[in-house]
C-alpha cells in the first residue's frame, strides 16, 4: 500500500489522519499466537496457545500473574509484554502497600492505557508491540479488558487476540450471551473450545495451551496440565457423543500432539 511516506515517525500524521506506526504496532499483535479471555459474573478465564520456536525450545510464556486478583495474557512482542507486566505488578504492589487493599482492575487498566498513549506521542519512543487481555476482580465484580498498543482499552464479555483469533471470536460471538451466568467449569470449557477453533484442525492437548482462572474466592493462578487435559478429554467425549450417536465412543487419551492428515 502506498503509505510509506508518513510511516517513519510515530509523531507524523498521514493526510488521512492516521498514525501508521501505531497501526503497525497493532499488526505485531496480530502476528503473535492466539490468546483469549472470557468472563462470567464471578470468574474470568484466560487461555493462550503456546508456540515454541522449535521442538528443542521451551514455550513462550504468555500468561502472567499480576496480583492475586489480576492476571494478563499477551499477544505480540513478548519482551514488551514482560516489561509491561513488571510495571503492572509494581503498580499493584505499591497500591497494596499504601492502602492494604487490592488495586481495582479498572484503574490499573487506565494507568496502563495512559502509559501506552505516551509512546504514541513522543518522537524518541515507539509504541509497545503487545496487546494485553487483563482479567481481574474488584468490588464491582469480574472484569475482562483489552489494552491496545494505541493506548485504547475496552471492556469485554469475551475476546480473542493474535493469529487466527477471528475463528475464536466467531465461536465466542455465538455463545457470549450465556457467559455471564456460566459456571466456572463451563467457562473453562468454552475457553478451550475457543482455543481449539484457532488451531484449525491441529489436535488440542494440554501441552500446547495454557489456561488461567481468577474468581471470587479464587486467586489468579495458572491451571496445571493434568486438569486441563481432563477437561479437554471431557470436551472430546461430548463432541463425539453428539457427532456419532449410537456408534462406539472414541477416546483418544494420548497426550502427544498428533496433527491430522489434511
Amino acid at each position, binding site marked *: 500500500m502506498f503509505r510509506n511516506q508518513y510511516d517513519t515517525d510515530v509523531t507524523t500524521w498521514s493526510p488521512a489522519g492516521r498514525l501508521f506506526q501505531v497501526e503497525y504496532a497493532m499488526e505485531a499483535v496480530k502476528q503473535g499466537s492466539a490468546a483469549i479471555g472470557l468472563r462470567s459474573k464471578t470468574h474470568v478465564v484466560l487461555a493462550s496457545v503456546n508456540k515454541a520456536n522449535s521442538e528443542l525450545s521451551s514455550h513462550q510464556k504468555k500468561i502472567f500473574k499480576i496480583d492475586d486478583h489480576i492476571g494478563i495474557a499477551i499477544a505480540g512482542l513478548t519482551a514488551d509484554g514482560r516489561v509491561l507486566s513488571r510495571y503492572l505488578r509494581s503498580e499493584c504492589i505499591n497500591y497494596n*502497600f499504601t492502602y492494604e487493599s487490592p488495586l481495582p482492575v479498572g484503574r490499573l487498566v487506565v494507568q496502563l492505557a495512559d502509559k501506552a498513549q505516551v509512546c504514541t506521542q513522543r518522537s524518541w519512543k515507539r509504541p509497545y508491540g503487545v496487546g494485553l487481555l487483563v482479567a481481574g476482580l474488584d468490588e464491582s465484580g469480574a472484569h475482562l479488558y483489552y489494552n491496545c498498543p494505541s493506548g485504547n482499552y475496552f471492556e469485554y464479555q469475551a475476546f480473542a487476540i493474535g493469529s487466527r483469533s477471528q475463528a475464536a471470536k466467531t465461536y465466542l460471538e455465538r455463545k457470549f450471551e450465556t457467559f455471564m451466568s456460566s459456571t466456572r467449569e463451563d467457562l473453562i470449557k468454552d475457553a478451550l473450545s475457543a482455543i481449539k477453533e484457532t488451531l484449525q484442525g491441529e489436535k488440542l492437548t494440554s501441552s500446547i495451551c495454557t489456561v488461567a482462572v481468577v474468581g471470587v474466592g479464587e486467586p489468579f493462578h495458572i491451571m496445571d496440565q493434568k486438569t486441563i487435559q481432563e477437561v479437554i478429554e471431557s470436551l472430546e467425549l461430548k463432541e463425539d457423543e453428539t457427532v456419532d450417536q449410537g456408534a462406539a465412543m472414541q477416546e483418544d487419551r494420548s497426550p502427544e500432539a498428533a496433527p491430522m492428515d489434511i
Partner: protein
Amino acid sequence: MNSIDATIAEKGLMSSEMGSERTLYPYVTGTSVIGIKYKDGILMAADMGGSYGSTLRYKSVERLKPIGKHSLIGASGEISDFQEILRYLDELILYDNMWDDGNSLGPKEVHNYLTRVMYNRRNKFNPLWNSLVLGGVKNGQKYLGTVSMIGVHFEDNHIATGFGNHLARPILRKEWHENLSFEDGVKLLEKCMRVLLYRDRSAVNKLQIAKITEEGVTISQPYSLKTFWGFSAFQNPTKGAEGSW
C-alpha cells in the same frame, strides 16, 4: 565536638538550608477521642476544646470530621497538624472521586494511607503531632482503627486516644459488647466522657458525638454533660487536714 556535629547535621537529615525546621512541640492541642463499634456502625465522641498549654483557649474546635462517603476521623493532639491531615485527605478523596468508576476508598484504605503518612513523617523526624481515630462502614463491614504520631496503628472494637487510654478504655473493656444499640452506645460514650471531664484537666464540657453507618455520617450539635459536685467531702475540704483549724 558539638559544633562540628552541628555543621554536619545542618546539611543532613534534620534541617534545611535555612536552619532546622521540624516539629518540636505541639502548641494548640485537643484532648482524648473515643470510638466504639455498635450495631449499625461506629460512634465517636470528642470534646471541642483546643488548649494552649494549660490554658483552655479555644472552645469550639471540631475534632470529628467526615471523610468521603464511608469514613469518619477524630484527632487529638496538635490542631494545625490535624488541619494539614484534613487537606491531605481532601486531596486523596478528590482524586478518588475523579476516577468516577464506581470504586471508592473505604475506611480501611484511608486508615492505611494515614499510617503511611504518619510513619513517613516520623522517619524524617518531623511528625504530625496527632493521635487519629479512623472509623467507618463499607459494604456492611464496620472498621475502627487508630494511628499515632509515630505510626503505631491497629484496629479494635473500641479505641481511645490520650487520657482516654487510661480513663475510658477500662470502662469500655468492661461494658462494651457486640451489637450495642445506638442509645446504649451513646450512654457508654457519655459515661467515658464524663469521667474524662472530671479527671482530665484539658477537657472542656462541650462535646460532639458522631455516628457513621452505611447510610452516612451524622455529627451531633455540641452539647454539655451534667456534672455533680455536691459531694460531702467538698464541703469544708480542709477540715481536719494537717495544720488546719
